[in-house]
């Protein structure tokens, strides 16, 4: 299976691990990730105002590029995934935004949300299959108790993202089982880490991320995995629980597949 791939800015820089291990693992799994040429930053946050079209154009360009190649668009970073999926949904369902964006882009064929946006985890679940993944694991992480941290952007709003049950997700837990480890269910796995507030209001970010980590630890986690660079930062820098390492899920995937 060949995907168009949208890495996003952070994965080219601070979160290069997330990207690197994803690519390595994809190779083992028979997935080809073709990076879109000249992609532009998605903006990091989805513009919520009803009359904001311009900030969505970068995402539309990526979506159109994938459409032209006839491929699904693969994402890794939670934020990129969130923005691309929601913009795509707007293009499909919001006539006002679709018309404006198409007028601006001057495409030969107008874009109306045809591209399917897929997160790497969704790809593992729906295309590779967790059972298949399990079969390909060479270094199962036996007995490791891993807490999945979803954060907000992957899950909500569930009606648009359709990622998993927003209040009781299981995709990452199933992933953890597939790589041979033991998932830890804890109540704060879908609560906010503090997000971009880490810049302005560090105290808030500290409060939020430590709630998450402490809850994970209380429930017996030995490490935490995430799909989001910002969550990673908050948990690591602001989480305040030093003996609980945080990994990108792709790193453990690569480790299990023996390509780390």
């Amino acid at each position, binding site marked *: 299976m060949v995907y168009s791939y949208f890495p996003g800015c952070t994965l080219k820089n601070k979160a290069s691990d997330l990207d690197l291990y994803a690519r390595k693992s994809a190779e083992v799994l028979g997935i080809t990730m073709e990076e879109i040429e000249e992609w532009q930053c998605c903006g990091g946050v989805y513009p*919520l105002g009803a009359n904001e079209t311009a900030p969505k154009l970068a995402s539309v360009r990526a979506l159109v590029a994938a459409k032209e190649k006839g491929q699904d668009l693969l994402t890794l970073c939670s934020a990129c995934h969130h923005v691309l999926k929601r913009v795509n949904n707007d293009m499909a369902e919001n006539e006002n935004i679709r018309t404006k964006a198409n007028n601006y882009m001057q495409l030969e064929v107008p874009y109306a949300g045809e591209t399917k946006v897929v997160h790497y985890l969704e790809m593992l679940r729906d295309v590779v299959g967790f059972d298949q993944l399990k079969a390909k694991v060479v270094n199962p992480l036996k007995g490791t108790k891993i807490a999945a941290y979803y954060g*907000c952007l992957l899950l909500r709003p569930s009606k648009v993202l359709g990622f998993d049950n927003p209040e009781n997700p299981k995709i990452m837990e199933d992933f953890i089982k597939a790589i041979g480890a033991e998932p830890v269910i804890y109540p704060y796995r879908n609560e906010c880490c503090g997000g*971009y507030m880490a810049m302005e209001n560090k105290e808030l970010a500290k409060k939020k991320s430590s709630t998450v980590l402490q809850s994970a630890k209380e429930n017996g986690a030995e490490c935490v995995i995430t799909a989001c660079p910002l969550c990673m*930062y908050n948990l690591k820098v602001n989480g305040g629980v030093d003996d609980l390492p945080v990994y990108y899920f792709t790193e453990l995937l690569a480790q299990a597949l023996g390509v780390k």
Partner: protein
Amino acid sequence: MEKNEKELAQLIQEISGLNPKKCMKCGKCSGACPAFHEMEYHPHQFVDMVDRGDVNRLLESKSIWMCLTCFACVERCPRDVKPANFIEAARLALIRQQGCNHLKDEAVPPLLDEEMPQQAIVSAYRKFKK
């Protein structure tokens, strides 16, 4: 031209593209909000204040800058009101005015550290300034 309070509330509603009247004042948004204690006015009040046109106090308060945009209120609202969108609309109504950016460029460097991902900076720029 200065906008009066009612017009400003109208503008916020327009930017949000949503109807605050759908709110049944159950308070689930404020029950779900992770940044509740940082705020002077809370998510259910945002919606109500926009609806009543009582927005000057809101726009002057720090509350609107405290929203983490985690969408907990949006996800759990039984009436599909989307309080987070009103908060963002209120921010936009402010920062679209000249010189009203919440985050000044010169204030940014001291806030950064080695580890901070680009995503945080981009997001904060998008959320706090135009």
